[in-house]
């Protein structure tokens, strides 16, 4: 293709983005748009899949059948969400195997929140309430993203997520209305999950290397700091209803901006966990790699069985 042709394709592309037109898999797109989307969508898919691990451990330890079926359904949803997103990502011309490979070799990232341990039952409450709450804010902002398959997957995911947050909040509410020990357990979970949840929105805008380009391509509709503010404003009153304290001495209402001011995130911790030094990074990755390796014989057997069946049908036809 001549440089002129590429330039006209690029102009046409920018024009479509500016007009809020969706980009579909077979449409021409700049290579960098494709790569950025593969990076973000796969990271999102990996987060759903790795996100099953902290909760999966609690399914057999849930305190009642009601809690157990709810948690099981939530973890199943996360598997489903991972699959929607992997499919969307594959439309950009990368194979599922390559995507898994990138996760397993540490080339691709997933949300750092899942590198924190879930050590008590109250963590199931805090994760649903805070982690899913933060995820919903991020994801609602993505329902209008410019890449069609990603936007459609997000719409489906957002519809299903709200039960996740409600089941988490209900767990917190039950604990907070229970014995003093139960309430203390809920407070402890909030203390441990609050800051990592704020970190889920990513680095500050001025330190976010991808924000500007992503806003331009309408991959992102709101900046990290805007979304983080929205999360704080929405969550503070919910904590008040539970009667537990958000672990931030600097948190206070700012009448002028009609939102809460809040303290500084520990960015050293943030970058440490991103770089692989969080409490559970190694454990999570090991669990995924083992699941893939240990499932290899099942994948092969299924393929062999499918071929055998096909050949039998062919024989019959002849």
């Amino acid at each position: 293709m001549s440089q002129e042709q590429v330039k006209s394709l690029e102009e046409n592309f920018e024009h479509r983005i500016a007009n809020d037109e969706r980009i579909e898999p077979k449409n021409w797109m700049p290579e960098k748009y494709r790569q950025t989307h593969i990076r973000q969508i796969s990271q999102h898919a990996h987060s759903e899949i790795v996100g099953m691990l902290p909760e999966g451990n609690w399914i057999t330890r849930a305190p009642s059948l009601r809690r157990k079926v709810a948690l099981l359904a939530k973890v199943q949803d996360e598997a489903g969400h991972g699959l929607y997103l992997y499919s969307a990502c594959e439309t950009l011309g990368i194979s599922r195997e390559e995507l898994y490979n990138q996760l397993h070799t540490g080339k691709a990232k997933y949300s750092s929140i899942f590198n924190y341990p879930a050590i008590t039952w109250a963590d199931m409450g805090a994760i649903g309430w805070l982690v899913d709450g933060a995820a919903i804010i991020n994801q609602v902002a993505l329902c209008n993203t410019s890449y069609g398959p990603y936007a459609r997957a997000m719409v489906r995911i957002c519809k299903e997520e709200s039960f996740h947050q409600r089941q988490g909040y209900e767990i917190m509410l039950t604990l907070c209305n229970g014995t003093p020990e139960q309430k203390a357990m809920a407070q402890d979970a909030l203390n441990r999950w609050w800051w990592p949840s704020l970190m889920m929105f990513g680095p500050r805008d001025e330190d976010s290397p991808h924000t500007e380009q992503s806003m331009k391509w309408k991959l992102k509709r709101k900046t990290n700091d805007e979304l983080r503010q929205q999360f704080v404003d929405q969550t503070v009153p919910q904590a008040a209803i539970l009667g537990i304290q958000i672990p931030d001495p600097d948190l206070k209402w700012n009448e002028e901006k009609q939102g809460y001011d809040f303290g500084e995130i520990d960015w050293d911790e943030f970058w440490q966990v991103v770089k692989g030094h969080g409490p559970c990074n190694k454990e999570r990755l090991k669990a995924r790699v083992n699941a893939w390796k240990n499932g290899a014989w099942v994948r092969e057997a299924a393929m062999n069985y499918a071929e055998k069946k096909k050949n039998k049908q062919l024989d019959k036809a002849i």
Partner: protein
Amino acid sequence: MKKDWPLWEVFVRSKNGLEHRHFGSLHAADAEMALENARDVYTRRNEGVSIWVVESKYITASNPENNGEFFEPAKDKVYRHPTFYNLPDEIKHM
């Protein structure tokens, strides 16, 4: 020899009387597994009463780069639309 599970496209009829609509895709070793996976991935909340799966490689798609010429034949045929015809205002319901 290692072979990856092929990709399938999933179409779901959300309720009787409606058409099947493309819902997404998934990997499965064969058609039967594709149907069961489609049920688990795309209809966890009663979103469907019927599912079709077809291996993605069997779908032939038009190329958006040729949209101009490809869809051109319909562009200048305004007489295919009811508004093309002039009728007196007194005529109602036509």
